[in-house]
């Protein structure tokens, strides 16, 4: 073979840098700060019971609505409860609901979308028909209806939001499966006589992951906002347990005299959602995924 050695010239430079270099290559501070913030708040939320916080539930009625000071870093609320402690316990709720519900949506939605996209025809019609029906309901209203029936609580809220995420993930999964199913490498695998599970898991699924995962990142922020909205309506965890939305709702009557009681939990939520969105934006650009309507 004459051509043997000469065909292979040094490989073309990779269009993307290795994943670990990601943050460094795009040397803007935003994603670094976003990552740092998320690491900080998630660690705090996980460690909450063991870092010597004041009780988030029992307040000191002598010390209501104090502005932030050395004693109470974030001040106290109208029942004299430590807002710092409540905020961190609130973060626990937010991030638990977010990761839980996104996992549910990703797992079930991704699987349904993969199945619907690959086995077109009856499977597709049934799955996507069911998804369409769920999407006929405004998400927040459906969430309110379900939670008000199941009763508030961490688990119920997580399951409800997760259920509402399923159609969105199914759609993304299906759309991408349809794209890759037509790719010739899938045809080549079929022509080889590869079994269906092998094709689904080894040929198609790895190619779906970038789209699904970067969508999951976006949905984390949507989940936090949704939990906050439910909390604001008193439908998240049961009071007096703290949630960011609930904290804002219960203190908003005192906006004039003690804005910190409203704005501090709101700010924490805003920063967390913003951080996730910044990373989501990066991930989307990274994987070159077109923005979809949220």
């Amino acid at each position, binding site marked *: 073979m004459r051509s*043997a*050695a000469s065909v292979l010239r040094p490989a073309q430079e*990779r269009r993307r840098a290795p994943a670990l270099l990601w943050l460094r290559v795009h040397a803007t501070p935003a994603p670094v700060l976003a990552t740092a913030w998320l690491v900080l708040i998630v660690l705090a939320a996980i460690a909450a019971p063991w870092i010597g916080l004041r009780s988030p539930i029992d307040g000191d009625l002598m010390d209501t609505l104090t502005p932030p000071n050395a004693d109470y870093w974030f001040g106290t609320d109208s029942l004299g409860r430590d807002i710092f402690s409540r905020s961190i316990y609130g973060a626990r709720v937010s991030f638990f609901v977010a990761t839980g519900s996104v996992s549910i949506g990703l797992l079930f939605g991704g699987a349904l979308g993969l199945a619907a996209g690959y086995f077109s025809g009856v499977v597709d019609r049934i799955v996507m028909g069911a998804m369409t029906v769920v999407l006929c309901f405004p998400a927040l209203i459906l969430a309110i209806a379900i939670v008000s029936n199941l009763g508030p609580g961490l688990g119920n809220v997580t399951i409800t939001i997760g259920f509402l995420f399923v159609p969105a993930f199914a759609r993304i999964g299906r759309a991408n499966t349809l794209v890759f199913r037509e790719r010739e490498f899938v*045809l*080549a695998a079929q*022509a*080889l006589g590869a079994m269906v599970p*092998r094709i689904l898991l080894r040929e198609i699924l790895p*190619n779906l992951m970038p789209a699904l995962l970067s969508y999951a990142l976006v949905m984390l922020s949507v989940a936090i906002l949704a939990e906050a909205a439910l909390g604001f309506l008193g439908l998240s965890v049961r009071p007096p347990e703290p949630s960011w939305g609930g904290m804002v709702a219960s203190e908003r009557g005192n906006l004039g005299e003690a804005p910190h009681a409203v704005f501090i939990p709101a700010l924490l939520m805003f920063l967390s959602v913003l951080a996730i969105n910044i990373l989501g934006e990066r991930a989307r650009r990274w994987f070159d995924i077109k923005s979809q309507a949220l």
Partner: protein
Amino acid sequence: MSGSDTTSRAAASAGEQIVLRVVDLVRDYERSDGLRLQAVSGVNLVVRRGETLGLVGESGCGKSSLGRAILQLPPPTSGAVFFEGQDLTKLDRGTLRRCRRHLQMVFQDPISSLNPRRRVGEIVAEPLRIWDAAPSEEIRRRVCEVLEIVGFSPEEVWDRKPHEFSGGQCQRISLARAVVLTPALLICDEPVSALDASVQAQILNLLQEMKTRYRLTMMFISHDLAVVKNVSDRVAVMYLGKIVETGPTELIYRRPRHHYTRALMDSILTVQSKLPEQEALAGELPSALDPPGGCRFRTRCPRCEAKCAQLEPPLADIEQGHAVACHFPIP
């Protein structure tokens, strides 16, 4: 050993040496708007052991659909595909699956033919992993061998991913994957159309080498007459879902008998030819949704008569091994 001897011997003892026989194959598609169109309407052809059949036609003539229908991806609407004597359309799933290892395909788009998330070594080893329960060193040895044959140094490329390679290199990888199981029939669907001229030549030469080394039987689908002439022993010309002319390559190119084949030949632009004043063929391919009755080519044919509209000409031998579907073939 001379390969051309093998092919001519194969052609001589035709009868039992037929690898593929396609009988009355029809492939319908339902479009998204609910209309049905027939991409392939009643094709008959044979491929004999050791030969390369070139299938040539313009875009939309159904040549790719035919190639895929032969592989049962998806199965044809009607008709039979006898591969090594077995009708693939009648096999149960398990048997069909076992047949697949002997039937391979190379596709047009070199980039999309390879899974972007997997490494070259894995991609080429995949057929062996599916079909051969060989120990992994054995698999590795065979993959290295075939990678070397298609022109790579295995250690260098084993852990790379497809996007690190150019189109021509990807096509070499696809070819390695297709031949690693030494298939009885290799269907190449426009394997060089997406490549630059200089790379095309590399791949065509490589195909020729592979054919000799693995004693491949090939079906080569292309719209490029010059390329088809270079690779084929026999040629079949397709127009709007039907084969209009088939015969030995040299014969067809030297003396086309169907008016469409002739027009195709006359449309080839070479550096020697000057652009003619009059085009070789006016008009465009009619829609497959509503093909003309009678002879499908009659709407563009210079020799069309009333008979052509009423009666569809059958594909009949005009001389030994050379068949034409025309009422008034070129003398």
